């Protein structure tokens, strides 16, 4: 089973992560629902995780630096999601919306 993953070239991993990252990026730029925005940001972070793990395997890093980085990204992403959802709940209590279209009160 492990062999299959090692036989895939590194370039495929790079393309896959870039595609995943761009899906997340365009989601953040064009979607309006704050929860979907959060999911898109998670997708971006997870594509980075995939790339980090692939690079570690590819370079045969003895200290597995990249994979260690993945754990840190996971922990931080969880903390960020917790704070983000808390902010969303606060906003929902005041506006009864999870849409980011209310973000136009502050203007020049």
């Amino acid at each position, binding site marked *: 089973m492990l062999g299959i993953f090692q036989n895939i070239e*590194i370039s495929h991993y*790079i393309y896959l*992560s870039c595609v995943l*990252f761009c899906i*997340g990026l365009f989601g*953040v730029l064009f979607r309006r629902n*704050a929860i979907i*925005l959060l999911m898109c*940001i998670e997708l*971006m*972070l997870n*594509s*980075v995780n995939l*790339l*980090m793990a692939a*690079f570690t395997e*590819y*370079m045969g*890093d003895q200290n597995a*630096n*990249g994979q*260690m*980085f993945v754990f*840190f*990204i996971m922990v*931080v992403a969880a*903390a*960020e999601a917790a*704070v*983000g959802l*808390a*902010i*969303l709940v*606060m*906003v929902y209590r*005041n*506006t009864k919306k999870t849409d*980011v279209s*209310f*973000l136009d*009160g*502050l203007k*020049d």
Partner: protein
Amino acid sequence: MIGLSIIFFSAIIILFTGIQKPEKKSKNLTVFSLLVAALFSLFENLEVINTQTLFAWVPSSMLDFNNFRLSMVALVLFLSAIIIGLMPSSEKKGSDLLGLTLFALCGGIIMLGSNHLVMLFLGIEILSIPLYVLAGSDKKNLFANEAAIKYFLMGAFSTAIFLLGCAFIYGGTGTLIFGEMQLKVGFAAHFGEFPILIKLGVILMSVGMLFKISAVPFHFWSPDVYEGSPNRVTSFMAIIVKICGFVAFAQLMSNFEPMHSWYIKWLIPISGITILLGNIAGMVQKSVKRTLAYSSIAHAGYLILFLLIPYAENAQILFVYSLSYGLSTSVMFYLIDKYSTADNFDFTIFKGIFNSNKLDAMALILAVLSLAGIPATIGFTAKYVLFSKAFEYNQWAVVIGLVGSAISIVYYFKPFKYAFVNENLLTNRESSLFTNILLVLAMLSIVVFGLIPGIIL
């Protein structure tokens, strides 16, 4: 290092003993611990105390505080003591907000001392996550809600871009440690062309960091966030986040110095646009807070000029510039917080300030002169050393910087139109003795370092 430990433990104490207490009771303890930590960092820097054995367990490939970094840590701690000390604390809110501010500061110090991409990333996040909470700490205020969610979305978005850059750098160099990265990049420089992975990584990491210091074209979130957040948080964001973010960015870029002539090609235009757009947009603003937000965008542009100068030479001037920017901006935010009301952020809040409160009027004059870079203030010293040094490397960038400074005078001097009117202030609040002492300290540093720049140069 010892500053980081002091701030960390006092943050825990203030967070857990202060949840029930109003903010007012913990404020003095917070400011005191910040000043003590700043003093110890200074001692550590001057090698009065030796902490080598105490912190021998920290691998220097992760966190390494050399002399320049220690002086920046002391500076950041001192500035946050002034920011927190100057702002009045509310009776209603708990002091957990002060604890969170200290935790954010821990993140800033980790960013300053990081020697490893993981530590840099953790520092950015430890700085940002408490600030997302703090930006929305005014729960019922819709503007604060908007600021919080905007700051959160943009912060998380820029972190993701930064991380993709880290991954590419890891793929290109095979290491996450700054020192080894520098070796690899220097090695690649001998073969002429740099690998595409490294170039992409540098661009993406720069975009992430430019988001944090709100340089144009990644600045669109910052005026809204600065305007919506509570005053103390805005002050903290405009000063500490910008200084820590930029110093970390400069340290990161110093590892790619063999590519200097390549990354300068796109950083100089960014700096020029940031200076011009920040200053021109600042001219047309009505609200003081928003004007200062654009002023801080323009200052991000001046900061990027530091990247023109090789890293080994710019340590001292970076310190002076950060000190000048931090002192004058924190005094301005203090005055805005003191005289503005919930629905009035116009320049008219300063009407008659000279008539009613001489000390605050003096502070206003000094802060404005220093921000505009008029001689005899620290702002002039900072801009002078920056421009004269950068002039050796790129003349046009400095010309744009000078034009920007000239434009900025238009909006910095707006308060003077109202300050000397022979009327009384619209809102007059008394400051405590402690606040006034800190204000005088900040004013003295603005004047003394401006008149005798030899002390810090």
